[in-house]
Every structure is written in C-alpha cells, then in structure tokens.
C-alpha cells in the first residue's frame, strides 16, 4: 500500500494501533542487542512455545530497548484496559509465571518493575488503562522519573520491525504534512530557530549546515547519516536505530525535502549487525508504503536511502575520512576546506549529520521550534541521549535535557557507584574527551560547560570511574586507543601519540622522573595544536584532564631522584 493521503495514513495508523493495543493480551520482549545478550531470544522462544502449546490467545511480539539495562531481560505486558506493565529480569525459567499472570490478570509481584497508564509519544498519545494499583508507577522509579524522553519516546514501546506501530505512535504524519504543505525553506528556518545542534560531538547548528548545503552550487547532492559511533562506551545511536529506525528515516526524509536532495546514505559501523538488519528492513518497509522512493506521499518529491558499512576505524567518524571510506578508500582525513558541504561524497555537496541529530527533526517539525527550545538551556536546546556505563549502579541508556547536572545523571538516575563504591570521576566525550572529577559534578552537560572543563560532549558516552580506577592507567588506555587509531597521515598525531604512550608506560612502570611530566605536558599541547584532524587535536584531552584533576596520582608514581634522569 502506498500512502498518499491523510486517509491512507489514518488507515495504517489504525492497523498499528490494533497491534499496540490488541483486543487480547500482548507480550513484548525487549530485543535490542543488549536484551538479546541478556537472554532475550531464548525467553522469546520459550514464551512462544508455552503460548502455542497451551493454545493461549496471547499476542507475542518484540520491542526495542527501554534503556534500563540493569533490569534486563525486560518484557512489557498489556492486557486490554489495564496499564502496560514492565517486567524485569524475566528468564526462561519464569516465562511460565508471566503467561500465568497474564491469563489470570494478576502480574507476579517479584517480576513487575512498574506500570504505565498512558504513554506520551509526543506525536501521539496511547491510553493503556487503570488498575494494578500495587505495582509502582513508572514515574515513581527514579531511573525513569529523572529522565525526559523525547528521542527515546518510542523505544521499548513499539515493535521496531513494524512500520505500522511507528505510524500508530504518530510517525510519518509530520513528514506527510511537511512534504505536502510546507515550503522547504521554511523547514530550514524552523530547524534553525529550534536551536538544534549536531549530536555527533561538535555541536554545529544543524539548520545552518542545511542552509549552506542547499546554497552550494550543483544539483546532485547527498545527505549522509553518520552512524559510525566509534567512541567505545557510546551506544546511543545503536539503540536509536535498533529501537526506532523509522524515526531516523523520517528525519532524513524531512531534511532531504528541505534541502531538495534525493539521495541519502547511512554510514554505519560493521560492529552493529542488528542495527544494519533493522535499518535495511525499515527502508524496505518505508519503500513499500511509498515513504521512500519516487513521488513520496503522491508529491513530485523523490528520495532514497542506501546503506554503506564501515569497517572498524575510529577515524572514519570524522567527516572527510567518512567520505573516503564510503568511496571505498582508506579512511584518511584531509584538511578542510574544502568542507563536505562544498565537496563531499563523490565530490558532490554533502550534508552530514549524526543519527541522533536526524532523530530530532520529526519532533521539531511536529511541535515547532518554540516548543522544542523550551527544553534544555540557552544555546543548548533539546535533550541528549547518553549511555551511562562503567562503574555506576544503574548502567543504561538515558535521555535528559541539555544542561542537566552530572550529579543528577550519575546519582539520581544512575544510583551512584556500583556496589556502593565511591565515584571518583566521569569520562565524557570518549577518546576525545576528558575525565571530570566528582567535585565538579554540579557541571551541567551542555556543549560549552564540558569544553570549559577540558572535556567534550562527544557523542554521549558517560563512563563512570570509581575509587578503584587508576586514572593514569585510564590516560594510557586512551592514548593507546588514539595511537592505534591514528591514520598515520600527520606527524604530530602519529609520532606524538606514540611517544606520549611511551612516557605514560614509563610513569606506570615507576621509571619516570618529574621532567617526564613536563615533557608529557608539552607534548600534549603540541599534538593538540598541530594535528591535522579532530582525532589528534583532541586525543590528548584524557592526559591533560587527568594531569589537571588527578595530578596526585601521577606524582605518586614519580621517582624523585632517578640516577640517570629516568632514561
């Protein structure tokens, strides 16, 4: 079926709604990569065979990830006219209890995490119902109540492999009204006014980049989605694509229309097989409904998306290296200009945006720039998704308004250090970021504040370190990472990082003197100032921040009177 009118869209919405709220019980297993690793597939199969053997009238399906990784496998249960109930730590052994509970409308207490009476998909509202008073409400769970879900509004609630459920939650209706009723320039204007900044790390204003791309000479241009997510410890983009792939597609569709571009690419890392599979499936679905391809929604606008797969090189997340990689070349950055907006994929003007940046677009167009910029802080509007990992009690995928303090994220949502240990620092921005000590946890996470701390927003990985973490070892870890990911093109990055690593090794081996610290500092400053691309320019942040905030840990390793000056 091709959707070409509001009536068509409504008809599909009804089909999807009936899947989300059937006239019989529905059980959905959270099956993103993390849920699967926690045993989700076995659980799904077990539930399926119990239902089949018993001949029960229960709908079994899958959902994306709601982000509370500590509680996985997570299952959601909906019984008509009752609240949706999230169950946690469900295993094949407790599958029988789940089915029994559903049939008797009596959810086992030990498995129930919380209930959801209604869910605001922002682009649509789903009313589940009343009841199950003894189960805590969603809003009573600190992990959830301290979050503000805009981008993750569908994750864990809809089946990511079924486009009708996305449409039921209000999906594609924004693209429809934009493509059939808005002037492309006014879309760019709306995105500009929303204050949306790139979520890939640098925070460049998205609307402005769109405008520059649109004004670039030439008719054949590209839009590209950066799904390389090479920052170890960051998995927001994976989850966004696995749990709600159509949000990304809708965002790209609206952007393509605004810029008048008909070719889209998603550059995704090879380490994400499930996300690749779900995206491919979603693109096929969108095509069959006439939402990608020729004459979308019956208009004369055409747009298609292809997938290009990366191959495990961190530097390929950098824009010019990414383009080289798409073209089947070695991913080595080149100096800019020329910028991608002038000469990108196959030499054509290209707009590159991160997965999450694209995911912000539908809601901006649905609710308007004023509504959108009502969340966040000045100059940093909207929310940001973070992966809260490392030595934190509740690791998971979370979303908060930009400007939310680290304290709130790590203590109120994360529950503090794992196993009651004292939190020492948090590492933000991945290999390009820095370590922020606990005493500065009142810092708000926004682009500027993190820079002031010597760190970076990066793509959104927050790695918590506790009292047992050795900060010098962490600095060495990152330098080792950056040194092995350096593409080798420019000298400061290639040789400088190698020597930084040697010095850190010497310090950790207890064979370094005070002058090694001075050398480390000078070297770090030089690499930062003279490297060709962002990789080298930011690679020493972990060293500089640990030197600044955890100097005592370095000092403790320094040998005061080395006979030969340490060499």
């Amino acid at each position, binding site marked *: 079926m091709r959707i070409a009118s509001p009536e068509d869209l409504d008809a599909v919405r009804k089909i999807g709604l009936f899947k989300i709220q059937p006239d019989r019980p529905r059980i959905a297993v959270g099956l993103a*990569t*993390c849920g699967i690793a926690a045993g989700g597939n076995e659980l799904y199969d077990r539930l399926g065979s119990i239902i089949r053997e018993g001949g029960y009238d229960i709908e079994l399906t899958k959902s994306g990830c709601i982000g509370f990784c500590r509680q996985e496998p997570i299952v959601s249960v909906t019984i008509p006219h009752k609240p949706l109930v999230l169950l946690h730590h469900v295993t094949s052994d407790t599958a029988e209890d789940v089915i029994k509970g559903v049939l008797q409308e009596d959810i086992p207490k030990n498995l129930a995490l919380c209930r959801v009476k209604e869910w605001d998909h922002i682009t649509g509202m789903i009313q589940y119902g009343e009841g199950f008073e003894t189960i805590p409400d969603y809003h009573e769970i600190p992990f959830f109540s301290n979050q503000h879900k805009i981008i993750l509004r569908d994750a864990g609630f809809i089946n990511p492999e079924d486009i009708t459920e996305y449409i039921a939650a209000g999906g594609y209706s924004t693209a429809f009204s934009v493509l059939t009723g808005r002037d492309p320039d006014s879309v760019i204007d709306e995105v500009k006014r929303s204050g949306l900044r790139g979520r890939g790390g640098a925070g460049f204003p998205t609307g402005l980049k769109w405008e520059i791309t649109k004004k670039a000479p030439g008719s054949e241009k590209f839009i590209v989605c950066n799904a390389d997510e090479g920052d*170890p410890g960051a998995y927001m983009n994976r989850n966004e694509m696995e749990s709600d792939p159509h949000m990304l597609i809708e965002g790209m569709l609206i952007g393509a229309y605004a810029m008048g571009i008909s070719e889209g*690419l998603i550059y995704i890392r090879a380490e994400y097989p499930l996300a690749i599979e779900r995206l491919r499936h979603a693109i096929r679905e969108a095509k069959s409904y006439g939402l990608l391809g020729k004459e979308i929604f019956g208009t004369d606008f055409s747009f298609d998306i292809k997938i*290009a797969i990366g191959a495990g090189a961190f530097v390929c997340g950098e824009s010019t290296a990414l383009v080289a990689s798409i073209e*089947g070349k070695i*991913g080595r950055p080149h100096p800019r200009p020329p910028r991608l907006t002038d000469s990108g994929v196959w030499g054509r003007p290209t707009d590159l945006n991160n997965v999450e940046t694209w995911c912000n677009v539908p809601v901006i167009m649905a609710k308007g720039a004023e509504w959108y910029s009502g969340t966040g802080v000045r100059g940093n509007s909207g929310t940001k998704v973070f992966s809260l990992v490392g030595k934190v009690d509740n690791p998971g*995928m979370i979303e908060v308004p930009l400007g939310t303090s680290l304290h709130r994220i790590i203590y109120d949502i994360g529950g503090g250090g794992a196993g009651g240990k004292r939190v020492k620092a948090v590492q933000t921005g991945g290999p390009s970021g820095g370590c922020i000590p606990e005493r500065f946890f009142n810092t708000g996470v926004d682009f500027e504040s993190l820079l002031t701390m010597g760190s970076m927003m990066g793509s959104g990985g927050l790695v918590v370190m506790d009292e047992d973490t050795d900060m010098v070892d962490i600095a060495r870890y990152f330098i080792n990472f950056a040194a092995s990911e350096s593409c080798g093109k420019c000298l400061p990055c290639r040789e400088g990082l190698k020597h930084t690593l040697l010095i850190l090794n010497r310090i950790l081996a207890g064979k370094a003197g005070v002058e090694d610290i001075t050398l480390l500092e000078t070297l770090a400053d030089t690499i930062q100032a003279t490297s060709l691309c962002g990789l080298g320019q930011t690679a020493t942040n972990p060293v500089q921040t640990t030197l600044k905030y955890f100097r005592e840990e370095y000092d403790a390793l320094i040998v005061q009177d080395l006979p030969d000056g340490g060499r």
Partner: protein
Amino acid sequence: MDEKRLDEIISRYDYPSGRILGILRDIQVSEGYIEKDLLRLLAEKIEVPVSRLYGLVTFYSFFSLQPVGRHIITLCMGTPCHVKGARTILATLEDLLGIKGEEESGKYFATTADNQFTVVIARCFGACSMSPVIQIDGNLYGYVTPEKIPEILAGYGWHP
C-alpha cells in the same frame, strides 16, 4: 569460499557508495578472514588493483588476512569493558586456552594449537551496560567474569 559465492556477494552491491567495503565485510563475516587468493580474484572481478584492496584490509581493523580457528572469540576492549576488567578476562582466556598473544596497535590475534579457537579484540559492541563483554561466533555474552568463562567456552566444545 568458491567463485559462485563471491559472485553472489558482489551482486549484492550494485551501488557505488559503500560497495568495496561492503563486499569485503560480507566476505569477512562469512569466512572469518579474507584469503589472499580470494582478494586477488575479487580485484579482477571488480577491476580494482589488488594493492588497493590490500591497503584497505590492512587499514580497517574489521578485516583479517590470517586464517582463523573454528570458533572466533572477540573480546571487547572498549572503555567501559576496560574499566570493568577486560584485561583479566583476556588473561583468563589465554590461560584456559593455552594461548599467548601481543596487543599491538589495537590488534590481537591468537589461535589455539588444535585450531578450535581464535581470540581477537574489538572496540565496543555497543553493549557496554553489560561490560565486560565477549562475543563468540556472533553471540554476545555480558557481565563476564573469569569464573563464568569455562562454562561459556564449554558451550563451544571446550573442556579443561
């Protein structure tokens, strides 16, 4: 991999963007490594100098030119996995499997004498909330501890 299968993989990519890396990835995923003769054959078929393909497979860490054992164990060495003890996991694997490798420039490669297991490292599967993480033949295992490893390996035919 026979020629027919290679042709089939090539035919999946009729679009220039992402074509070469896509083909190489599918070969890597299917075989666990990329055989040099196959690389030569591929170069002929897609009319790209073999030197360029060689450059790609050595630059990108996803590819391997070395033959691998029957099961591939990929240990995550991402930041969260690192702070949660990935190195101890590697040491345990080396100990149990009787192998020894060197981590160099982000790569690690060691195969057991009986050719049953190859251990390599990767940077982040995006399952960091359950770190430390290992992957065996595509299946992810989270919250790994040295104590759990024998049981996991036993599922792939390992015994002490």
